[in-house]
């Protein structure tokens, strides 16, 4: 196993002209339908360093899944990437049509919420795991199985040889998700995109998977984009956090900063709305209304119709992402007022 990681480091040090593993700039993905244009991702920008875990949090319909699917260029129809740049290891993936085929599934891999729907039920785990290795690393079946075993061991699955012969329905939910992670890593991937990987799992299993992802990050020094709707999970796993709402990043900062000193009213409300296990609350804070339809967004700031601080400006003009210093970005006209009111 040490051999593998050493190999990886050598390979990486050979081409260290890029500073960021992934740079996303003004990414726009629209769903063009007869009913109108839904701006699912509308100008998303962020950067990810090697060995960093970026948490992407938002409610359903906030565009977090579409954003990462755009990075992988697997947006379902009628969605279309209409603008922006995605630079992976310094290489622009959107400009060159063949570039994505070289890295997708090899250097850039993805795991999904429900592992059972990503695994093929009629093929053995071994057959599915070796497919990627044989395709991308050009190995023979036998060698590919050895590699698969190594990675199954890495995700702490006992008797990997045995597991290779099993079918997905033989495994429990937690085990399946581990197989998916092993499958994502086995081609020496340097960027793992995890789309709500623990949402369908029980809390104790979730804790194991979170610990595993952290550990693998430390060991393989890979970048991770972790999508979730759970603030608690974000707090436990990510280094930086981006809060998404209606296709835009509303706040971006280190996770500690987001949890301790949230500046955007949406982030504040989101944190206050969660029942907490460690303190006592009388009544839960609620955000009035619900997430607006993408076809019918309010003018100006997209949160203005639910925001308690909203003023005239918020209803007419769309705010930019301000840098408030220390790498804390917030998309709000009134962030200066909200931070003072936050007790």
């Amino acid at each position, binding site marked *: 196993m040490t051999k593998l990681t050493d190999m990886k480091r050598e390979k990486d040090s050979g081409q260290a002209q890029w500073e960021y593993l992934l740079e996303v700039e003004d990414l726009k993905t629209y769903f063009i339908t007869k009913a109108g244009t839904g701006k699912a991702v509308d100008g998303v920008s962020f950067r990810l360093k090697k060995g960093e875990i970026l948490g992407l949090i938002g409610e359903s319909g906030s565009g977090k899944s579409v954003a990462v699917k755009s990075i992988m260029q697997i947006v379902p129809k009628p969605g279309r990437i209409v603008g922006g740049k995605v630079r992976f290891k310094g290489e622009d993936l959107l400009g060159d049509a063949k570039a994505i085929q070289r890295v997708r599934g090899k250097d850039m891999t993805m795991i999904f919420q429900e592992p059972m729907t990503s695994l093929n039920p009629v093929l053995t785990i071994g057959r599915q795991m070796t497919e990627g290795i044989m395709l991308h690393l050009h190995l023979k079946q036998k060698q590919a199985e050895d590699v698969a075993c190594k990675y199954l061991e890495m995700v702490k699955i006992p008797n990997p040889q045995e597991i290779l012969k099993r079918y997905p329905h033989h495994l429990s939910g937690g085990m399946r998700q581990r197989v998916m992670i092993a499958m994502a890593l086995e081609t020496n991937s340097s960027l793992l995109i995890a789309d709500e990987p623990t949402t369908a799992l029980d809390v104790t299993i979730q804790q194991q998977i979170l610990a595993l992802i952290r550990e693998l990050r430390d060991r393989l020094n890979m970048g991770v984009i972790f999508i979730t709707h759970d*603030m608690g999970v974000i707090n436990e796993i990510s280094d930086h956090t981006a809060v998404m709402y209606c296709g835009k990043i509303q706040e971006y900062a280190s996770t500690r900063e987001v949890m301790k000193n949230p500046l955007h009213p949406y982030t504040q409300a989101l944190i206050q709305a969660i029942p907490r296990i460690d303190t006592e609350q009388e009544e839960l804070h609620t955000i009035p209304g619900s997430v607006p339809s993408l076809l019918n967004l309010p003018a100006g700031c997209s949160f203005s119709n639910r925001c308690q601080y909203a003023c005239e400006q918020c209803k007419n003009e769309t705010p930019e992402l301000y840098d408030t210093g220390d790498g804390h970005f917030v998309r709000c006209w009134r962030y200066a007022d909200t931070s003072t009111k936050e007790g």
Partner: protein
Amino acid sequence: MKEILRVEHLKKYFEKEVGFLRKKKKVYKAVNDVSFHIGEGETLGLVGESGCGKSTTGRMIVSLLRPTDGAIYYQGQDISLSMRNKDSRLEIKRNIQMIFQDAYASLDPRRTAEEAIFEALDIHKMCLDPQEREAYVNKIFSDSGLSMEQRKRYPHEFSGGQRQRIGIARAICLQPKLIICDEPVSALDVSVQAQIINNLERIQNLYGLSYLFISHDLSVVKHISDRIVVMYLGYIVEEAGKKELFEQPLHPYTQMLIRATPSLDPDVDKTQKLTIASNEKNSIDTSLIDVCCPFANRCPKAGEKCWSEVPKMKELEDGRKVRCHLY
């Protein structure tokens, strides 16, 4: 506090015919030994991971499933006896209502929101006068947080949170005494989840309801309940008041659950959480049911006795109940 519901040694086994020509029978033991009671106006939280039998327990209480063994008493009356007579059956069904996790699946797609409520009122012959009914349905809708113009809409026209509100309206329209809430907020976004939880609490005060709140989310259960029972593989492993349970969890499984629940505290020690996770052994093993302690394979403190004997529910001196050989 007056007792409204008592459940004693409830069991539910599911049988499946397997093998060549379906000659063999395989028994799945979903609920093995569940006993608890709910007082008037009280919220009892029922928490456990998937497959622990918490929903099966709820379904048995509303008579959607017939228990294999054990008894359910509503206000001192055995439900299985009341079910034989048509009038008393209607009476019990009116008093014990249920809110489901998936509100969309529990609503008829071809009936409007108000029709869902009319049906319940028709069956129980309540508010038969049209004017009275009109006013009553309006009241129920506003109590559940829905507006009047939403009465004539179909389920697909509502958002997830609003559909759950229809589920609540349908449950409270019969003026029940007890509502079984089976994961009512699990499918909702956090901001909507908070609205529904607050609404449930408001309705409880308004109507003097008791809740059995079933959920896998410890923090939600903690917020809403007065008392909590923890289930594991069909057994109740611990029962305690909310405060005691979170301050000093006794059963190793409860301790594990509480530590595994993600915390919102940015200063929480993540390295400590890591060691818990890596110490953790295999997952749920159903073959341990009725053989030894069902939690023995995952328990960090399991001793010899845990592997040989099924633990019984013990009541400790301070009134707390726990099913573990350590106490």
